[in-house]
């Protein structure tokens, strides 16, 4: 997907002015946070589970080559095939080639963020395949020709009315002509349409929440059961996964699963947790004839070797964005690429460059709510600050900000001048504000007022001046 992150400022303003979007965001706002808090509160060992999860992820990342080889060997032993994709381009090519070799026409897809990251759908459509997303949210945004705006609820930005319109326009060709109003009716209609697609599909593509090294097993969690049908009905199953998804054992995967549902949707477990290992064996009643895993690097080994390694612990639960007040105000599309919110503000600049996405790490108040809820304790605000440092070193930020900071540092290292300067500033601002005690506008400070707020005026004297006078009086 072509990144639009350079236009973050404009896009965030549009988002704030988009009334329909604001309705959808407000509806979603507290739901996830409240559900998560309830689920976490009901599990006394949640904090120790987080510690264990961090240990599991750190250990795996330290020995990633070993566990990836173990995983790949296990997949091959179970009759599957492993493909290594170092870039997004490689990943697209590999997936297209597998589909072409199998003579496929129709492809069903389970939800996969790495699929969005490398642009699988576009490549397949370009190669002439019909691709159908089977996760309801993904299906909706596919009809709308939009990218996801959230990593676990991709259509969270859509209102019920918008979805009804989309179905009405797109389902006519299946003879479904009635315009629907209620959610259950819409879900049923989507099911009806998708059922035929499942049966007709030649290839099913899913992502993976975890890859278990000891057995070569891929794990996905869903709430709709669409993942099961996508990976078991077609004769070819392709798993697309980032290399950081591997964990050593099934025990490790189950530890992480206990955190994932609770952190994401506040569920103890998702409705379906699906384990797939290799193709159909002789004697199995169902399952695919071919089983492929595409292991995608696309910048991950670079992260492994630098200050952003901790980001590879991410299990894509979405808790950071569910608790981010900036995400809550503007939604996911403003961020302009695949991953939004705090985790996206770290990943996007690393993937598409700071020149393109420099706004993302800056558009954060460093309030720390994301790190507080992250199940694998990723220090997201610190990583965002590290990106700001990188931006500063590369001289990518705005020049006036740079000059301003340099002047401020000089000022703070000259205390006498600092005391005098602040004294003049406090006195002048208090005089200018007069009896009103605040400013409604001020030259050169327009940005403060663009936030729809006044600026309180100082009391008049600096504390240091008051204190020095008081000390003299005492002496």
């Amino acid at each position: 997907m072509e990144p639009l992150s350079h236009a973050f400022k404009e896009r965030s303003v549009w988002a704030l002015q988009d009334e329909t979007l604001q309705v959808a965001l407000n509806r979603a706002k507290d739901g996830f946070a409240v559900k998560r808090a309830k689920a976490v509160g009901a599990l006394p060992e949640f904090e120790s589970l987080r510690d264990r999860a961090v240990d599991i992820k750190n250990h795996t990342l330290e020995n990633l080559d070993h566990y990836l080889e173990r995983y790949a060997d296990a997949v091959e032993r179970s009759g599957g095939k492993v493909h290594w994709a170092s870039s997004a381009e490689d990943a697209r090519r590999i997936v297209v080639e597998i589909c072409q070799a199998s003579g496929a026409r129709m492809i069903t897809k389970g939800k996969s963020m790495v699929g969005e990251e490398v642009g699988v759908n576009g490549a397949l459509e370009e190669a002439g395949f019909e691709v159908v997303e089977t996760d309801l949210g993904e299906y909706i945004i596919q009809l709308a020709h939009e990218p996801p705006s959230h990593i676990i609820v991709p259509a969270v930005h859509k209102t019920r009315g918008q979805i009804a319109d989309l179905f009405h326009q797109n389902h006519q060709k299946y003879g479904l002509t009635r315009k629907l109003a209620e959610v259950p009716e819409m879900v049923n209609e989507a099911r009806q349409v998708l059922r035929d697609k499942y049966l007709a599909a030649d290839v099913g593509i899913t992502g993976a929440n975890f890859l278990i090294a000891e057995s070569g097993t891929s794990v996905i969690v869903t709430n709709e059961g669409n993942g099961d049908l996508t990976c078991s009905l077609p004769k070819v199953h392709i798993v697309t996964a980032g290399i950081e998804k591997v964990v050593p054992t099934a025990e490790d995967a189950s530890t992480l699963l206990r955190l994932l549902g609770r952190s994401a949707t506040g569920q103890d477990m998702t409705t379906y947790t699906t384990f797939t290992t290799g193709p159909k064996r002789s004697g199995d009643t169902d399952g695919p004839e071919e089983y492929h895993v595409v292991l995608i690097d696309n910048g991950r080994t670079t992260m492994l070797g630098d200050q952003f390694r901790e980001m590879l612990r991410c299990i894509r639960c979405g808790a950071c964005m569910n608790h981010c007040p900036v995400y809550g105000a503007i939604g996911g599309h403003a961020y302009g690429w695949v991953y939004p919110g705090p985790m996206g503000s770290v990943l996007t600049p690393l993937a598409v460059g700071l020149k393109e996405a420099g706004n993302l790490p800056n558009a954060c108040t460093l309030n720390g709510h994301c790190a507080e809820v992250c199940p694998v304790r990723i220090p997201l605000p610190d990583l965002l600050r590290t990106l700001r440092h990188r931006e500063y070193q590369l001289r990518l930020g705005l020049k006036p900000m740079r000059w301003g900071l340099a002047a401020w540092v000089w000022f703070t290292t000259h205390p006498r001048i600092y005391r005098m300067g602040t004294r003049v500033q406090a006195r002048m601002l208090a005089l200018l504000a007069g009896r009103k005690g605040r400013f409604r506008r001020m030259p050169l400070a327009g940005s403060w007022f663009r936030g729809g707020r006044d600026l309180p005026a100082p009391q008049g004297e600096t504390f240091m001046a008051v204190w020095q006078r008081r000390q003299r009086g005492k002496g």
Partner: protein
Amino acid sequence: MNPGADSVGAGAGSGADARPRVALFVTCLANIYRPNVGLAAVALLERAGCTVEVPLTQTCCGQPSYNNGDLDGAAKTARQTIEAFEDFDYVVAPSGSCGGMLRDFPRLFASEPGWQQRARAMAEKTYELISFLTDIRGMTSVDAAYPHRVTYHDSCHGLRALGIKEQPRRLLGTVRGLELAELADSEICCGFGGTFCVKYPEISGRMVSDKAAAINATEAEVLLGGDLGCLLNIAGRLGREGGRVRVYHVAEVLAGMADVPGLGDPRQPKGGS
């Protein structure tokens, strides 16, 4: 070196010496905008049995540089602060944000072991004002009256970096006449975020107007908080909306010094009526 509150006035003859020497890091915003917060901090610290000093060479905690990627600049400011404060028993700031920054100083000197050692030593004795009063000095009550319905905003850095949540509430509970109405979403950021509020004013504006709406819903007369950055932002929004809620730093109320106009309120005419 951890004198409890019971050491107050102990050690006859060397009584003054038994009092811990506390250096007040007043913060840029209190210095420029709200000297009353500094005076309230001094009063509270003295009541908690401390000898308060104000190093004249203090300036800024360095957050503007630190949070905008200029780590070298932040280190320069930090050295200035360390030199000014390292010789005291404690360093106390009426701000969780600036106090938290001082605690973060060791990170700025990863490649300078000497300075890192000094930064660490200072960080270990640095506290936010209210948590210092309760957790270190064992203060359990204040002698103040404030017969108003108030609500409280938990500033993010104090809350999440320093664990400040019930300490101010505990002391506010002992203020005569004060009624605390809890704020819905009191742990959600107000949208200040240092330079964030001027880099992304539209987003910041949305966040602070949500905060103002929650404050208004409590029907409180007064909003209190522990960080002037957040309070200036919120007071600015409340003022723009033309509401009646007044805004004070929590220290002003605890010290019984909230008898001046609130943040952004009209100044009292000289000489009175």
